[in-house]
């Protein structure tokens, strides 16, 4: 692989700096969320029934459309046998009016972030994974970013009166575990990682309008904007792997040598859809 060691060291230093900035940025949103939590205790939401109905309808739509399993895993040849029964279990589960949708959304988001961290860490332990140092750096940095995202979502859930979600998503985890034996090369890993990033992206978009307070959208939208860059990067890497040009997954970039497809593979849609979205309560504690 063509690797500039100095450039790569710079990347690692930058990623360390990013963690400091990240915590500062995450803390910016917490006072607002804390205020929302206090106001909620003092003044219960009069529109709760309507929001729960909206939540229910959104959940049914997401499940009907297939979400993570049907359209995603099947397309990638990773579909596991346990998925169908797990989905049916969620469909059948009623949503009580007292359930707090906001907290469930944040819990589910944390569960997806935790699963992403686990998946990247598992990938880093694969015997072939160290061949391309840029991919290694990407996996390490991305796992770290997902850790920060989970911490931010957990902080929001706690501020709203809920509990932290420190586990991985209960529906997606078995599917990722089932896929692990198939991760025999970079292409397979990138494919699975892209699916996880797309799931997070679609879930955050799908749940954005379910929040009871508009200010709660900020932290989720901020993370959405980062997950989608992970996805774009993975899609571009996948295009280079498909073109049998792994040596171009390098920094500095040999732009002149990049195939035309690399210029657009990272952003195939003009609008993000919600095809891989998880139901809002899927990772609720």
């Amino acid at each position: 692989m063509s690797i500039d060691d100095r450039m790569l060291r710079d990347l690692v230093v930058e990623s360390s700096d990013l963690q400091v900035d990240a915590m500062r940025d995450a803390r910016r949103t917490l006072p607002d969320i804390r205020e929302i939590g206090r106001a909620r205790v003092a003044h219960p939401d009069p529109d709760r029934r309507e929001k729960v109905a909206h939540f229910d309808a959104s959940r049914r739509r997401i499940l009907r459309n297939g979400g993570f399993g049907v359209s995603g895993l099947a397309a990638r040849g990773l579909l596991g046998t346990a998925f169908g029964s797990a989905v049916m279990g969620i469909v059948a589960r009623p949503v009580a009016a007292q359930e707090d949708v906001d907290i469930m959304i944040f819990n589910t988001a944390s569960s997806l972030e935790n699963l992403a961290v686990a998946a990247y860490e598992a990938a880093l332990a694969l015997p072939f994974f160290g061949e391309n140092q840029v991919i290694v750096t990407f996996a390490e940095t991305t796992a770290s970013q997902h850790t920060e995202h989970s911490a931010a979502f957990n902080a929001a859930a706690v501020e709203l009166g809920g509990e932290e979600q420190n586990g991985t998503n209960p529906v997606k985890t078995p599917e990722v575990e089932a896929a692990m034996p198939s991760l025999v090369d970079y292409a397979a890993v990138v494919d699975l990682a892209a699916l996880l990033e797309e799931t997070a992206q679609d879930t955050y978009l799908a749940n954005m309008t379910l929040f009871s307070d508009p200010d709660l959208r900020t932290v989720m939208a901020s993370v959405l904007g980062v997950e989608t860059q992970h996805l774009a990067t993975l899609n571009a890497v996948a295009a280079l792997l498909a073109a049998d040009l792994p040596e171009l997954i390098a920094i500095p970039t040999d732009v002149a040598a990049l195939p035309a497809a690399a210029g657009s593979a990272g952003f195939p849609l003009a609008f993000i859809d919600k095809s891989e979205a998880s139901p809002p309560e899927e990772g609720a504690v």
Partner: protein
Amino acid sequence: MTEPTTDTVLDAEPTLPGTGGARRGFMFAGAGAAIAAFVAACGSDSEETTTPETGDEETTTSAAEEEEETTTSEGGGEASGGDAEIAAFAASLELLAVNTYTAAGEAAAAGDLGEVPPAVGEFVTAALGQHQEALDMWNGVVGTEATETPADLQAVVDEMFGAVTDVTGAAELALELEQIAAQTYLSVIPVLEDPAAVDLAASIMPIAQQHAAILLFVLGQYPVPDVFLPTDKAATPS
């Protein structure tokens, strides 16, 4: 907010005016007709109103669910006082992107940017098309076609574009525009009132971020520099 490097050309270039963070103080008016247009543009009798794309899976929505979700969406729109103005500003930003990418493509075709790598040419074509789609969508929301770009941003883009002599310079200008667009969308997501408008802004914002990631890679920078998307480059109406 976090930047991957401190020695890029962009850092030495003039700061774009009208940028600088989210705000809650939009004072806009006249949203009713625009929201009606938004609903008309984003949905039909058989489609869900909260999805900007014509997703085929939405056509199977039951009547009860459709009524439930549509009511929620329109209810939010009726209460909106600023969504129309935000939509108009979003359209003007998308128009600026369309115009800039079009000009970059023309400059490349004329040989003014030197040798243009195939991936860069492909990027310009694809990104231009997607910004045009976003522009068309916002135009549908507003009810009229945007004809003006944000004057202050346009002036600075013109100045920066005048200094562009190669693909790298063009990519840096494009990166700046994509970051402004993404961060502007992020800044208005908590401000928008109609759920359908939120949905549209939140579905376009990631596309600008994806464009930025590829541009960063092309420029030899880390493609995902921020742990949380900031709003320090967000544009505000002048």
